[in-house]
């Protein structure tokens, strides 16, 4: 009997097909594979779960050992947000879920949805060029910096921290052939972004708004001026869900803006939901450096009808192999469509409200936790968005505090050191959730 996924796996059907092609057995098709490299035994795999019921039972047993947190204060690059039902409905549409690389004709809807994603992000970012999503925010930062390097022809990159050390790891690995990366992080030595001097050999200054610790640095516009004064590009990583309330990086001088769209309606999926964006002004010297696909809108032969196609295709590795910019391939398109639906649902008011709600709740959480004995909140004079650092000054380490929180039904923040943890609040939290966290910390932070 055949397998349900494989129509022609039934032995009788197979015989008929073999006869039709004049082959005695499938072995004929493998004649070019030398015997020495043939696997002369079955693969050693678990017995198959051929019925759907057995498969579901097996998976359910595994999934039952996962416990989504009832109340979590984790962020640090992957964010809990409310996922509107319409976003999920569209993401689950079989046509979008299973389409791939069709032409702009039979896949017109895919092209339009992705062009609209680019456009909706463009409004949010106040920039005219946005790519079809790349893998994730890490890749977006790495590519944005190499784009800046190609534009300026310079080697040195300044990465102004705090930046997630994992992201720095990715950036360093990715830019290594062309660039030296200098990470400047004043978190521990009191050094300020406003003190930074940018040398004339610098290709790009990279900074985040908000940064890894959630801080919106007041010196961002000043840093843009310093970068531009020496002909360096100003590259800003940002959290797009902040931009209804927080200024777009382009408005204070960013040349390339990048980040992760996971906050825009995409489930966390244990870190599987990340997807990256890169945006610039509409200048040929910048556009020519994108490795990603960029869709553009064009008329058709019918009045009032339009279609979509690749802009400036002859910069991609699809067109030029190793002579293209970096490479292009399957990346994160469906996440782009989801983010587009999210932005369309939210509209200008929704984006402003969610930005303000998160700003207000973050400020409240910092203030409330700072009032707990043996807890301090660094960066007290700055404004933070979603993420913020909490410092435990008692005898218990941040990891120990997290264990005690978990025993009380709360998932604490990401542990940064013995004393520090990165907590996060978003619109899914209510003021009462913060109060509950504070009350438990009053009990355990000693």
């Amino acid at each position, binding site marked *: 009997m055949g397998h349900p996924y494989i129509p022609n796996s039934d032995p009788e059907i197979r015989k*008929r097909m073999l006869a039709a092609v004049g082959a005695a057995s499938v072995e004929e098709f493998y004649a070019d594979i030398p015997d020495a490299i043939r696997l002369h035994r079955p693969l050693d795999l678990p017995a198959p779960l051929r019925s759907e019921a057995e498969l579901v039972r097996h998976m359910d047993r595994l999934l039952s050992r996962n416990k989504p947190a009832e109340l979590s204060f984790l962020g640090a690059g992957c964010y809990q947000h409310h996922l509107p039902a319409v976003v999920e409905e*569209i993401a689950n549409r079989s*046509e979008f879920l299973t*389409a791939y690389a069709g032409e702009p004709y039979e896949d017109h809807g895919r092209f339009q*949805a992705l062009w609209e994603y680019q456009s909706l992000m463009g409004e949010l970012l106040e920039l005219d060029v946005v790519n079809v999503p790349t893998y994730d925010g890490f890749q977006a930062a790495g590519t944005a910096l190499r784009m800046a390097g190609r534009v300026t022809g310079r080697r040195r990159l300044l990465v102004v921290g705090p930046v997630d050390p994992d992201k720095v790891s990715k950036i360093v690995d990715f830019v290594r052939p062309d660039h030296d990366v200098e990470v400047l992080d004043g978190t521990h030595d009191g050094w300020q972004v406003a003190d930074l001097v940018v040398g004339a050999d610098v290709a790009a200054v990279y900074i985040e708004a908000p940064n890894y610790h959630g801080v919106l*640095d007041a010196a961002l516009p000043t840093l843009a001026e310093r970068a531009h004064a020496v002909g360096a590009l100003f590259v800003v990583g940002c959290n797009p869900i902040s931009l209804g309330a927080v200024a777009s990086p382009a408005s204070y001088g960013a040349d390339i803006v990048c980040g992760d769209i996971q906050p825009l309606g995409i489930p966390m999926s244990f870190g599987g939901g990340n997807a990256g964006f890169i945006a610039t002004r509409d200048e040929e010297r910048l556009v020519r450096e994108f490795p990603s696909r960029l869709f*553009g809108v064009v008329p058709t032969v019918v009045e009032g009808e339009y279609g979509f196609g690749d802009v400036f295709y002859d910069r991609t590795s699809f067109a030029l192999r190793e002579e293209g910019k970096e*490479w292009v391939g399957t*990346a994160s398109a469906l996440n782009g469509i989801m983010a587009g639906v999210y932005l369309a649902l939210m*509209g200008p008011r929704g984006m402003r409200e969610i930005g303000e709600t998160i700003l207000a709740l973050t400020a409240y959480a910092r203030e409330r936790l700072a009032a707990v004995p043996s807890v301090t909140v660094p960066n007290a004079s700055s404004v933070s968005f979603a993420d913020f650092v909490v410092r435990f000054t008692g005898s218990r380490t941040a990891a120990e505090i997290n264990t005690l929180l978990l025993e009380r039904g709360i998932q604490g923040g990401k542990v940064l050191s013995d004393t520090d943890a990165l907590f996060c609040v978003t619109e899914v939290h209510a003021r009462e959730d913060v109060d509950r966290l504070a009350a438990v910390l009053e009990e355990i932070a000693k």
Partner: protein
Amino acid sequence: MSASSPRTPVPVEDARIAPKPGLRRFHQARWDEPLIFELTSPGERGVGVPVTDLPVPALPAGLARAEAPRLPEMSQPHVLRHYMRLSQETLGVDLNVDVGQGTCTMKYSPKVNDSFVRDPRIASLHPLQDEGTVQGVLEILYRLEGLLKEISGMDRVSLQPASGSSAIYANVSMIRAYHASRGEGELRDEIITTQFSHPTNAAAPKTAGYRVITLMPDADGYPDIEALRAAVGPRTAALLITNPEDTGIFNPRIEEFVRLVHEVGGLCCYDQANANGILGITRARDAGFDLCHFNLHKTFSTPHMCGGPAAGASAVTSALEPFLPRPTIEFDGSRYYVDDDRPESIGKIRPFYGVVSNLVRAYAWIMALGAQGLRDVAETSVLNNNYLISKVLEIKGVSLPYARGRRRVEQARYSWEKLNADTGIHSEQIGYRVADFGTHYWTSHHPYLVPEPMTLEPTESYSQADLDEYARILAEVAREAYEEPETVRTAPHNGPIHSMRDASLEDPGTWAVTWRAYRRKLA
């Protein structure tokens, strides 16, 4: 008709349903849908947001948004309807006999696997949750690595790469780290690949700073072994090669290729994008490779999602294990845990652990098939391909260049050179017309080494009737090319839109990547 009216007998032929014609009278949805910005209706909104009476802190100078983003204002049903229409104007695999998207392994993605990743016990997990609360997903990742180790023969597998290309880059990074660890990092600055390997096998090493040497096919379409002999040397870092290549031709001298590269101290890295026809038949390790990668969205069935998220898996021998992306997932006999303490690692390729939703799907797919099922996948995809070849080669104007008389593995690259010479119709135009019958068609990657190329890959998901239908569509379009070429030249006719006037896409003065750009330049 009232009960009392006299009955006139209906002739049987008026009630009988005629058989379907051989070709589908297809017409795709054509909604003539406006751009989303044209649907704005000020005052409407699509979703409510929690608001708070807590004070909003004042932002530093220049960091408060001055002007609201010019997003459309739309009610919820209007947003839904717009995107529903766009989805109907998209031809997903679930709707069509998708054998025309060669190299992409378009197969059935089982629906039950989607249910696992929509489950909040996957979808709602934060990657940094306490390990004790995520033992199930860590076990899935650990077990998936084990399955792929057996399927490839390799010693360790990283599931972190986001795609096939991302996995190729991770492999190149590991190759660099390996040579650097032996003091040969500077010396070995060349990577060799082949013309019929995916473009990323050339582009990723170049991005990583390597000089790329591309081997062209010999007269029979096999990668030229004499060219390899001439290319290898002390500067060789690695060979990156696909087998079978995008022509569907298996390189029978692959062991010799591997040996020549190993003899000069280079590594061999196997792009297994085309593994669908050789699962359980031959493995990367058995052919002597040091690294390989799989595209889980191709061979292992995770849906293609309009172009990702995908998932890649980089597999290595123990000699390269220290350089794997961090973290790895480990098991101590009682619990699963994340090992981020890997000092020689190339570092992070992607945030956290990979595209976990697709890793879960791939795991479930392998578990539903087992060893015999994977072998059935391979053998059926190869059988389907050779069956389709026999059908396609009956069509006027098409040929199968290279390796004459040899069988192909899981796909085939054909040429319409003769049809083009006879009619002036190009392969791309055939593709636009094929879509009028409700399916896809693809030429090949650039450059077109095979003239007027067409690449077909009928995976295990299609039946004999499906393949016959696809062949009939090609035969009909070829007939049209000869007898009524204008029909082909002006295609598509039955799709969501008509021929585009797309010259503006290459001109910085007219290209419009966003609605903002369109408004500024063209409105």
